[in-house]
């Protein structure tokens, strides 16, 4: 198997990731890519608390994720990779890395962003970033949970 879901979600590891996606995908590991969380053992423990013990949680900086992406893609278990912003996922899709699909699962309201979907708020610059990703050949859709249909990029940017 490999990483079944590359997700952008500013809540990082939470119920929709662990239960909503994790159960139907039968995930064996979750990779959380976030430089600040990677640097804090306390934050890591906080995110680990919401994950059943049979699922491994891997914390990585963006740099570490770039180095280990191929290893995770070859893992025999099913995995989910989650990052909190578009920049991080964009970095992972650069060069020759094998990210072909990106799921926008939750980007919430902040100053400068406007509502595109109930769970997706984007600034114009962020919408443009996602279109750039798509132009690189990455399939970008929005979908909060697997029981809802994926929303094509052109419908929310």
């Amino acid at each position, binding site marked *: 198997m490999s990483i079944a879901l590359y997700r952008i979600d500013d809540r990082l590891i939470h*119920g929709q990731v662990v239960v909503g996606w994790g159960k139907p995908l039968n995930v064996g590991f979750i990779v959380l890519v976030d430089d600040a969380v990677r640097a804090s053992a306390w934050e890591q423990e*906080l*995110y680990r608390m919401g994950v059943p013990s049979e699922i491994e949680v891997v914390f990585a900086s963006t740099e570490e994720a770039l180095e280990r992406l191929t290893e995770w893609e070859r893992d025999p278990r099913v995995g989910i990779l989650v990052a909190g912003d578009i920049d991080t996922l964009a970095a992972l899709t650069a060069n020759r890395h094998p990210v072909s699909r990106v799921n926008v699962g939750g980007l919430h309201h902040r100053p400068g962003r406007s509502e595109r979907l109930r769970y997706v708020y984007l600034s114009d610059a962020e919408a443009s970033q996602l279109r750039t990703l798509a132009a690189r050949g990455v399939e970008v859709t929005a979908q909060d949970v697997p029981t809802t249909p994926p929303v094509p990029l052109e419908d929310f940017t």
Partner: protein
Amino acid sequence: MSEPLRGVIVSHAAVAQALLAAVAAITGVHDALVPVSNDGCDTGALAERLTRAIDDKPAVLFVDLPGGSCLTSSVRLARGRANVAVVTGVNLAMLLDFVFHRDLPPGDAARRAAEAGSRAIRTPAA
């Protein structure tokens, strides 16, 4: 006498609001609990809602799940504050007990509520 504890119910969707309504219906107590939903919130927005709900008062945060955004935001907010405690797995039984024991220190009230909530989970023979 010091100010009674405030209970803040932190949940997904409308669980917190529904629990608050149930406590009020059963006890007639309307001023002990504040509901906070994580609907539409990133981490920062939920932290703002929690900060407003606590209002710098001594409080116990009753969180729905032992993981996820409600818990992470609540624990971050309680960190380093002796007058804020966190309990997970909120249920009606623990809230009913809490509203009548708001004179305890937050940590003691949280432990008491957790015990009351645990005692309510049973599998009665049908």
